[in-house]
């Protein structure tokens, strides 16, 4: 795999243009290129997944444009801005979540939206994907690292409180990502392995409790369906059976673009949203899948490099956590569509049709670019 050499090359030789220009624009060219490749490829697959509905592709294109602008805006800000704003953003986010639970606008029995007059509707839970790691990083970086037990406890609380509030909406997918973001911060901060062991022990105790007291029936159903999709071939298992069929029938090199029968014949539900990977796998085969995963791998490598070379603890923790959250997206979505994980509503980052998650993700990449391009040059 060429990823290793890529890692080193990108370190010394940015792909194009004099470094000065990129620094001035606060764009990391390597990351930018990879993201654009991903977005472009995503639109091509989406065109097929949306049944060649150009309107869908155009709408997604516009959203991606907006998301890119958001990314650039975030990239212009100095990382210290995020650090200073973290507590306030966090407080606002918690308030927003509370408001959603009290007066939220619902869709399909889940309340996620907050309609404030004069502002576009937005999901506070989406915002928390960024704010939680900022807050946790802000808190932990104020103390010596590795963190002490009580700092770990507080940091985990920072992650778990919004997570719990989001579960109540209920939105399993988002709460998972928000919680993960916070936990990654704690991990990067250097929490001791013993504590990690204890944490896993705790989870293994909490899981059954969750099952009996917290999880909704439909969530349990998803887990059960995952274990045996054949048990409910028309309901919850339908999606999985169909997406596996789509992926499997793609074979090594796929049926060809726009030739996927599973998605075009409407066997596959949500073929342009959460299950778009199945369309790609069906039409571009194993080769296409591999290309996509390698592309994601390269993005993650680049981002982890940015994190590792960041100049202060806050930036490092935040960059690391955002990167790993992005990876979780990929892993959960592809795992879900291929029947490895239960169905939780997680989109394929930057490919699935849908605006909110794309904007959040690009904002996160903006933060990473900001961290990368605002480094004070000390020594080469």
């Amino acid at each position, binding site marked *: 795999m060429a990823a290793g050499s890529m890692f080193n090359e990108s370190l010394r030789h940015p792909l194009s243009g004099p470094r000065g220009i990129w620094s001035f624009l606060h764009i990391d060219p390597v990351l930018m290129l990879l993201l654009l490749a991903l977005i472009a490829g995503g639109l091509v697959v989406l065109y097929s997944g949306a049944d060649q509905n150009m309107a869908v592709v155009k709408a997604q294109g516009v959203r991606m444009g907006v998301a890119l602008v958001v990314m650039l805006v975030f990239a212009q800000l100095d990382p210290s801005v995020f650090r200073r704003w973290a507590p306030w953003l966090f407080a606002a986010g918690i308030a927003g979540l509370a408001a959603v639970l009290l007066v939220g606008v619902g869709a399909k029995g889940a309340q996620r939206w907050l309609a404030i007059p004069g502002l576009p509707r937005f999901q506070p839970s989406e915002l928390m994907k960024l704010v939680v790691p900022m807050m946790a990083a802000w808190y932990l*970086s*104020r103390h*010596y*690292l*590795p963190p002490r037990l009580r700092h770990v406890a507080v940091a985990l609380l920072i992650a778990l409180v919004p997570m719990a509030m989001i579960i109540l909406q209920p939105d399993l997918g988002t709460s998972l990502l928000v919680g993960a973001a916070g936990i*990654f911060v704690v*991990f*990067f901060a*250097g929490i001791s392995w013993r504590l990690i062991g204890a944490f896993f022990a705790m989870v293994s105790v909490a899981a059954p409790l969750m099952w009996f007291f917290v999880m909704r029936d439909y969530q349990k159903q998803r887990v059960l369906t995952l274990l045996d999709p054949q048990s409910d*071939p*028309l309901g919850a298992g*339908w999606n999985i059976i*169909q997406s*596996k*069929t*789509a*992926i*499997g*029938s*793609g*074979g*090594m090199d796929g049926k060809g673009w726009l030739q996927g*029968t*599973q998605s075009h*014949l*409407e*066997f*596959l*539900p949500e073929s342009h949203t959460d299950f778009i990977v199945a369309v790609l*796998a069906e039409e571009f*085969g*194993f080769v296409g*899948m*591999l290309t996509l*995963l390698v592309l*994601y*791998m390269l993005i*993650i*490598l680049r981002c*982890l490099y940015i*994190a*590792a070379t960041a100049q*202060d*603890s*806050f930036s*490092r*923790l935040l960059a*690391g956590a955002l990167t*790993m959250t992005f*990876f979780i997206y990929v*892993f959960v979505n*592809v*795992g879900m569509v*291929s*029947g*490895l994980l239960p169905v939780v509503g997680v989109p394929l980052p930057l490919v699935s049709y849908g605006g909110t998650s794309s904007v959040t993700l690009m904002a996160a990449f903006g933060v990473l670019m900001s961290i990368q391009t605002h480094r004070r040059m000390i020594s080469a």
Partner: protein
Amino acid sequence: MPWGEFKDTAAERRLFQRRTVVMLLLVFVLLSLLIARMYQLQVVEHDIYTTLSDKNRVQVQSVAPPRGLVYDRNDVLLAENRPVFSVTLVPERVGDMEQTLAKLQGMLSISEEDMERFHRRLLEPRRPFQELPLRYDLNEQEIARLAVHRHELPGVEVSAELVRYYPHSELTAHALGYVGRINRQELQRIDPVNYAGTNYIGKSGVERFYEQLLHGRVGYQHVETNARGRTLRVLERENPVPGEDIRLHMDLRLQQLAHELLDGRRGAIIAIEPSTGGILALASVPGFDANLFVTGIGVEAYRELSKSVDKPLFNRALRGQYPPGSTLKPMLAVAALDSGAVTRDKTIWDPGYFRLTPGGRPWRDWKRGGHGWVDLTAAVAESCDIYFYEAAVAMGVDTMHQYLSEFGFGEDATLDVAGALSGLLPSRDWKRAVHSEPWYPGDSVNLGIGQGYMLATPLQLATATSVLANRGNWSEPRLLKDIKGDRSIDDVLPTGNHQSIELENSEDWEYVVEAMAEVMHGSKGTARGAAKGAPYRMAGKTGTAQVFSLAEDEEYDEEEIRERLRDHALFVGFAPVDDPQIAVSVIVENGGSGSGTAAPVARAMFDAWLLGFPEEGEALVVGSSEGASH
């Protein structure tokens, strides 16, 4: 505390980088897991999923064949197919079922029954994405209303199918039968392949008997469908073989005349063409609208039909079993002559009563004081009971049973009339088996005038009359005349197995036929009034059948009781005498006398068939007769 101060930043960085490496390893491992999974699905198990995917993509759909049409002998359409629109729901696609149903109820009239049936079907196991019918036969307005609100009714479809329609239903319901939705018992019986996609099956009459012929053969199309089962593209198609169009012997004009003749009364008329056995008319009055039964009749409407004292659903022509009374006398006359029980010149004195033994119980003649001296011709023409009492006793039950069964009594002698009953032709063995009693001479006496145990349907009487008209040659009654396609009628019409009746002296046929002509044209003939002024000679026999009891659970008023206790009027006959074109049997329930009520009806049928159908507004019945009642 100020940022970065007093912190071992280098140590922190090293710690962070160690952790990053751990994470990088985690990412590698998990991504490898995903890649392995994809490899498993896409390479190792590729064949499995390819098969699944093809199965998904291409579905074999059955294409129901259009049902064959039914015409009368003059190519008047009796049964056709018309598109009917119904509203169906795909539960998987309906978001909120209750709300959707409520909305639909606001747009269409949906009866309680429809709702109940729908909910019942909802609970039954079914194919995924199968459409469940909610209401059939939408009218134009309802279709339009649904079209307008279509966007707010996901999972609701309006589907069209060809459904049987009987343009002359009231006239033909009993003769033609009807189709209905396939029920559970029928599902067990039918070939599931050939009926895939078919919703209707013949329930009675011609529709039932010729089901296979009319149904045709199912076709297939391989279609690309989506998960909703919606067809996107037809890949290949094997067209269904439509059902055969058939022609019946029936003449709708004659059928209509029969209905008009009995209008407002209850009864049956069967007309048969003796030479072919073709049933020209088969009327049971009152009729009903068979179209109601096609898509399923409402409980209320059905109750009304089935509870009606006029019994419109009861097919009197094939299933009404009446004592044939004096209409049996011509056949008994043949039997008596051929068996030697009587001779042509045997005359008897009829004092008005008959005793088996001196001083025994008397059997009365219908005519008080009797007919005086009568020979066989007079006995038939004037319907003298006493002559036949004696002849019956002389023949005995075995001989009578033998001859009467040769005329088709006691069995369903038709080739293709579904549901015809066989009446009751009593015999020694039957009485022993059913009543555990021996056959008494008195039973023979009763049988001699078609009373007692004997029961016959109007169709059987018409059949026997037709055999008589043919001078003993059998031509079993049949509805089917020919098939419009290239299939031969011999493939589908059962072959008759009746032996022609061979008499010792074939002249006896003419003798009995002349006696029957005497009924119509003789100076003392019981039906002479009905034959007045006819330009052709006809043969016939009047009769009455006693009504024994009224159904207990029915309420009648005084007037009605008197009316419903009156005898049934019967008549059998054929015309012209020397070249029979048409044989009929008529029964008018509670009509009183055969001569006064039933014979004029037969005359009208003869006239229409032989001289041409009456013009609109012309009187149907030629002068009814006076006097005689048998």
